[in-house]
């Protein structure tokens, strides 16, 4: 009864997503490579790749950078700015709503490469931002002096639209009589938001956090075009480290082990969110 409609998704997901991921679980325990002798005869190496990963300062620093990137750009940046914009736009005129909405969404619908190169040009030493800051004598090469800040800002710029749209939808479902009642009781805007609106949209907040966290964990192209993980590996998050190991050095086994670390990190974040949902309700 429930199976026939689910079958196409099970087949597609099993074949093209779950299957390859399972292969990754297998490959992570081999020294499989793109070239060289281990490309012909990959050997089972047990947990070698994982011991290398966990004793490597590279993986540790990439793991840390990934967490920082996710917390700053997704949890704080996209989520915070998204909710702020949604609230601020609530009772604005059509014109302002239209302008702000379109501009924020434009950054989101841009193809990744275009977005990445546009923000690269913007933050570059010869770019627009420095031209403007130069008038105040504040010009500097952001991609070099503050690379993590640069990629965080880039990801906020690119991804805030998603959270904004989600929160606009959620706010429209908050019963207006609740808010009005609180207003009659003399609650200021901040208190109203905290005590009335937030409890109603709490589930949306948590779910949105989970979605943007997962989307941000996998961000590759944006960082690759902006900094390629540099300078001095200060923006080399796990997806970049994985790509470097697997495709630049052809170390598929080791690269795959790093990918699994990323998968686990995503699961940890998600479990925290799911737990917090259960605790609330």
């Amino acid at each position, binding site marked *: 009864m429930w199976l026939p409609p689910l079958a196409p998704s099970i087949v597609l997901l099993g074949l093209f997503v779950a299957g390859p991921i399972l292969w990754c679980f297998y490959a992570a325990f081999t020294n499989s490579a793109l070239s060289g002798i281990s490309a012909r005869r990959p050997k089972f190496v047990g947990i070698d790749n994982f011991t290398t990963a966990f004793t490597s300062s590279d993986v540790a620093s990439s793991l840390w950078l990934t967490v920082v990137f996710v917390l700053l750009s997704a949890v704080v940046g996209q989520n915070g700015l998204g909710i702020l914009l949604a609230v601020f736009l609530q009772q604005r005129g059509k014109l302002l709503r239209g302008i702000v909405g379109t501009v924020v969404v434009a950054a989101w619908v841009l193809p990744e490469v275009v977005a990445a190169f546009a923000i690269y040009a913007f933050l570059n030493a010869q770019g627009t931002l420095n031209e403007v800051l130069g008038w105040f004598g504040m010009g500097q090469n952001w991609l070099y002096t503050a690379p993590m800040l640069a990629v965080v800002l880039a990801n906020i710029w690119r991804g805030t639209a998603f959270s904004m749209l989600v929160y606009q939808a959620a706010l429209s479902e908050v019963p207006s009589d609740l808010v009005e009642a609180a207003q009659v009781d003399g609650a200021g805007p901040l208190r109203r938001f905290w005590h009335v609106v937030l409890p109603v949209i709490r*589930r949306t907040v948590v779910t949105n956090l989970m979605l943007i966290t997962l989307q941000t964990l996998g961000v590759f192209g944006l960082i690759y075009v902006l900094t390629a993980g540099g300078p001095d590996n200060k923006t080399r998050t796990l997806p970049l480290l994985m790509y470097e190991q697997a495709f630049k050095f052809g170390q598929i086994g080791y690269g795959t082990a790093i990918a699994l670390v990323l998968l686990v990190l995503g699961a940890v974040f998600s479990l925290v969110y799911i737990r917090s949902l259960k605790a609330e309700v």
Partner: protein
Amino acid sequence: MRGPRLVVNLVLLVVAVLFVAPLLWLVTASFDTHGGLAAKVPGEATLGNFGQILNWEVGGRPLVNGLLISSGTAIIAVVVAVLAAYPLSRFQLRFRRPFLYTILFTTGLPVTAIMVPVYGLFVRLSLVDSLWGTTVFLAATALPMAIWMCKNFMDGIPISLEEAAWVDGASSLQALRSIVLPLMAPGVAVVGIFTFITAWGNFFVPFVLLLDPDKMPASVGIFSFFGQNGLVAYGQLAAYSILYTAPVLGLYLVVSRWLGGGFSMAGAVKA
């Protein structure tokens, strides 16, 4: 209340300016004969950059390929996701939550992580260099988000309407088609656009799975403007970027207008 109102408007305007600033360069450089990296009024305005790229090889075929791949991806993903969403939304299934969360976890993995086994799989299935194969694969990777969103949209439609149809003797599939789908059309459009945009921007998947340069979509084509040991033709890169962005921006505007001015995510995201 005038004070805060002004502050809020000001904040919104500042955000709008900050968001639009990185895009200005695309526009100015595309009309500039000697475009650099900063946005400025072109010293020597030209349409030459567009002239350079408006030919079938550079600006034509890659866009058509991209349209074929991305719309195919969106259609497949939407159809499959709506079908899957139905039982997930309407039946009390014990594995529903684990199923949804598990497929959602996979969205945290960059697609580069699985391209090696996927390539092997495509060889086995004789799908390498096939537009169809690439499209179906992109649809599969889009499914987790698409199913999640469709299921939530469907949850927002009261089951009582279908029950009435069942009483009249309609099957589940008929009820889905004639009652649920029309009501969740805006949601379906949102999922479709979301999938389309993601596929439209995907570089790595078509680059790896296709061989024939004549089949490559615009997301791969754009990389030919990034020189490696030579100068980047900034003007042409910017012009191509605009050409390459136009379809998604247009699609978004058309659909959001059709949805009544709002690209509503209402109900798309719930636990």
